[in-house]
């Protein structure tokens, strides 16, 4: 199985979720993160103190899926999250050794 971890722009979350549901992905886990990269944050000024925040709010989406589906998951995300602007984010793929569904104890791909 693969863990597909995507860092995307927050307002793209809905599109990504829809794209993945279209693929038959039944679950995912989402968290709020801050990204540092080519895209720079806005400059904030508080009473003369200027902060060029180089941290930009992003959403991290994590999906575990079976090996065969992974390339399509990556592709769907890449298309759905693409706005063509700097800071659209990255997708990383990692190997997952085991998966367990807590409720039933099922393991492997049936646990997803």
């Amino acid at each position: 199985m693969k863990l597909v971890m995507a860092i995307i722009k927050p307002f793209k979350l809905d599109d990504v979720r829809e794209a993945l549901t279209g693929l038959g992905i039944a679950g995912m886990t989402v968290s709020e993160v801050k990204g540092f990269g080519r895209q720079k944050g806005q400059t904030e000024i508080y009473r003369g103190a200027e902060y060029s925040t180089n941290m930009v709010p992003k959403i991290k989406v994590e999906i575990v899926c079976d090996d065969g589906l992974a390339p399509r998951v990556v592709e769907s995300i890449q298309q759905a999250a693409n706005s063509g602007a700097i800071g659209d984010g990255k997708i990383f793929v990692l190997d997952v050794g085991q998966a367990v569904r807590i409720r039933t104890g099922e393991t492997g791909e049936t646990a997803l």
Partner: protein
Amino acid sequence: MTFTQKLCGLAGATALSIFAAVPAWAQEAAAAAAAAPTPNKGDTAWMMTSTLLVLLMILPGLQLFYGGLTRSKNMLSTMTQIGAVAALAMLVWVMWGYTMAFGDGGNAIISGFGKAFLAGITPDSTAATFSDGVVIPEYVFVSFQMTFAAITVALVLGSVVERIKFSAVMVFAIIWLTIVYFPIAHMVWASNGYFFGLGALDFAGGTVVHINAGVSALVAALMLGKRIGFPKEPMPPHSLTLTMVGTGLLWVGWFGFNAGSALEANGSAGLAMINTFVATAAGGLFWMLTERLNGHKGSALGFCSGIVAGLVAVTPAAGNSGPFGAIVLGAVASVVCFYSVSFLKPKLGYDDSLDAFGIHGVGGIIGAIGTGIVYSPSLGGPGGDDFQIGAQLIIQIEAVVATIVWASIGTAIAIFIAKALTGLRVKPEVEQEGLDLGEHGERAYN
């Protein structure tokens, strides 16, 4: 006798006068019982309302205004320091504060001690207002003035939060109130006070409250040193939402301050009211405008800062100006405070955490001096026909300079003692992790 000499004389006289005033105690208490006119209930209602408005400025007004500007790890510390110092000021006030500022007798620097522990005051005692034969219940006057003492010492904290110990704040407050606030309040507002005698105009406490607090804040910040990481590390306000809420409450409450200082529910209070509206509105908008002119976006914090700058500036002028004089005063103070906070502070490099000096100090000075100008009837002010701007300006400046000197020296002493007794500053680890956990064992948000 030069002005400097006079000042030294004043300062020197204090130690003496504190003791000199004591023997008068017994006689004065007796005198207080004399027959007095009955308070008008409309005045009483308004003065009680005004008193509460000033309380609202402190809790939760200033707590939110200041607290929102700190980092979340210091939120409770900031709010608790403000709350506790206000509570302490109230107890000190009824013990020896009121009598030092407004007791009977005494001299140009402090009053007699005859009203220590509010001796002799009953529900039937009255305090005079500015109109002949018009009085208000003395307990109401005591309460009203009590809130001024409480907020002034709380304002000072703006420059030292996020690093000063809670215990240090408590010690500092007791001493500072005693040697700085009470004498200055007496000098400005008591009928036998020094500046009052000079004819200095200060409707609602521009010198007593704002210059005093602002300058004391600066001295305290310099003695305490910068926060770890300042100015390299960004220290953005953790909740401008709360700062904005605090700003609103300060504005609402400030009418207690300014219109309440008329001591009556009359046309003079009405004038102070409209001035407090328009000077403040101008202050808020002109700060944003100045930001735009400096190539920035008009900011929410700018609006809030301008509101406070406008309020500070109109304080001494509230009943001493026409509405358009007040607008100009608010706008000018706002612009100058913008530069003081955005350029002067970074240049000088001191760490006045929440700009208590940059806004209350600087705005207060502009207000105090400006009051000498806008009072003029030629500018729509309520001054008499024989009013002379030049002469008045000299008096105003004298009062300002004297307040600055007095506040600086007194603050230095108070901080020095607080340091000796408590160590003054929290440990670096506590500062790193936040004073909420380190000093109070709690988190603001869970």
